[in-house]
């Protein structure tokens, strides 16, 4: 058992898998000698050498194209896209090539690859370096989408993603990189498509993802002191989606609130809301409410960014108001 930061967990998860499988290779910008701009890959170059851990030019299409071509010919590449905002410069490779080629070829090719990326705001990086792009990936058929919220999950879900035969977009909340927790020794392997119920309550179900999970938990504690008991679910993976857990828990409380970092329109919460409003409509006792960043580009100033991204206070107030109206 050791205290590990979220960022250290990344390297540990990758190293765990690189040790057991020679076909796992890793490429990206400044990932080797520098250990990554977020220091998420420190030590990998030293342990695995520069044939398996490779620094690339600033060529995101080449990085992901290389990962795709390598995956379809026997390797299991992990590629880093430094900030998830940069998916926009290589979206074709992700959305049109990697996601679709297995289907188009009627299963002739398989893409066991992971694309990991720093995601979301909180570091005052402004509109082009702070986006939460989980919905970009979720809306493309053929991509799995994993978003861990703590160091232990990072390791286990990273391992599961690397072992998974399908392409996984692995989004690491930048706001959580510095967070710490106790991590057991030894191999950790988790399962994709399993949400976690972190807290059980009878009044409402709060569904959160990534950086919003700690906030949702804290909000639930505050709400409990006001007599509103919430179930809190950490979604963990958007595709595959653990609808079993989510439908069950929402049915149990009759109310659902989502807490989303992405800008409002067409977020994962909208998808969940539509599933709930279709499949367990008659179990609902009141409106489904989404707590999201407003539909705006993210501002850089600390004061503005804090206003934009859902805060514990906003979560508490929104749920409180909605439950009492």
């Amino acid at each position, binding site marked *: 058992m050791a205290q590990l930061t979220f960022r250290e967990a990344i390297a540990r998860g990758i190293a765990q898998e690189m040790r057991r499988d020679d076909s796992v290779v890793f490429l990206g910008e400044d990932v080797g000698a520098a250990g990554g701009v977020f220091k998420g890959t420190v030590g990998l170059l030293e342990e695995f050498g520069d*044939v398996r851990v490779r620094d690339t030019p600033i060529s995101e*299409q080449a990085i992901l*194209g290389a990962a795709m071509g*390598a995956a379809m010919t026997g390797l299991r590449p992990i590629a880093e896209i430094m900030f998830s905002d940069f998916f926009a410069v290589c979206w*074709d490779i992700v959305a049109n090539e990697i996601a679709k*080629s297995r289907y188009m*070829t009627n299963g002739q090719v398989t893409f066991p690859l992971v694309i990991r990326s720093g995601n979301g705001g909180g570091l005052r990086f402004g509109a082009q370096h702070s986006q939460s792009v989980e919905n970009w990936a979720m809306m493309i058929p053929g991509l799995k989408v994993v978003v861990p919220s703590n160091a232990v999950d990072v390791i286990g879900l990273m391992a599961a993603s690397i072992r998974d035969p399908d392409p996984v977009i692995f989004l690491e909340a930048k706001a959580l990189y510095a967070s710490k927790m106790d991590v057991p020794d030894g191999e950790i392997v988790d399962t994709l498509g399993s949400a976690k119920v972190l807290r059980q309550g009878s009044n409402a179900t709060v569904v959160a993802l990534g950086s919003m999970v700690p906030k949702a938990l804290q909000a639930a504690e505050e709400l409990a002191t006001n007599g509103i008991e919430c179930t809190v679910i950490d979604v963990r993976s958007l595709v*595959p989606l653990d609808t079993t857990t989510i439908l069950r828990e929402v049915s149990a409380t009759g109310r659902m609130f989502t807490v989303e970092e992405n800008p409002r329109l067409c977020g994962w919460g909208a998808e969940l809301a539509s599933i709930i409003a279709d499949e367990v409509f008659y179990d609902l006792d009141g409106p489904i409410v989404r707590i999201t960043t407003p539909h705006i580009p993210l501002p850089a100033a600390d004061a503005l960014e804090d206003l934009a991204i859902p805060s514990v206070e906003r979560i508490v107030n929104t749920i409180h108001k909605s439950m009492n109206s």
Partner: protein
Amino acid sequence: MTSTHAAPELSYLDHKVAMYRCQVALRQFEQRAYDLFLENFVKGTSHLSIGQEAIAAGVAAAMRPTDWTFATYRGHAHTLARGVPMTPIFAELMGRTNGLMAGKGGSMHLTSVEHGMMGSYAIIGAHLPIACGAAWSAQYRGTDQVAVAFFGDGSVNIGAFHEALNFAAVWKLPVIFFCENNLWMEYTRTSDVTAVANPAADRAAAYGLESIIVDGNDADAVYEVTSLAIARARAGEGPSMIEAKTYRHGGHSRADPGKYRPDEELAEWLLKDPIPLYRSRLLEMGVSEDDLLVLEADVDAEVETATNEAKAGGVPGEDLLLKDVWADGGASWRN
């Protein structure tokens, strides 16, 4: 069917005859594909290589069965040249269950991994970095496989081209970038929108590569230059880029009569049709007219049989619709 793929162990003349057969097969296949489109058997779009066959034939002849081809939407010829039988390709164009991808990909995405045909890609430039990835995998695993990626003259102005070329050069990857310069994009002349005269060759230096231009209507020339490039790649000397000058006889895609091209230009290139030229060369080299007629009839028969087999294919249904999004064979995104 007889394989249209020419293996290098053939005798000198046999090898040339095989390249001829390949070109004839590509031509006959595509003429039939065009007829089938007119008869409304082929749905969707398709892009023919009629006039450009010497390239597919020459390059394929220079490759080993374990090497990889990455093609564009204009990929029928490259798929056939790697030895993929005609029937599943016809059937794919018709959207049948016996299609190469059971109808799920269509004309623009022909893929046959067992023949080293690693896919046809319909977004300009995308496959160039992907081919780098396959080459990287060969390099990493220490095999001597080589990846060949074809692209058009109009494709040299897209970002992915640039990223792939630099990446391959820096990592010294065993990949050949093969430009089929047929002078035209869809309906726009490439030279109208390209800063250099030889769209690929004049940019080789920007990636530290040699500038290589070849007559794309001469299968022997294509074979030679490609063989050299592949040998360099296998020897760990990194990528090459080859620009072949050629011309498509027809329009860009099935719906296009190609009227925007000057009559003289087309006439001039029809005179350079690779197939009669190659045929004459074989005759000069002593191959008999009779042998060639037999060969040509044989291809005719192959096309005929394949057409019928393809037409006999079933219509795909719900089971195929929801098959193979994921490696588990299914399409479910939830539990």
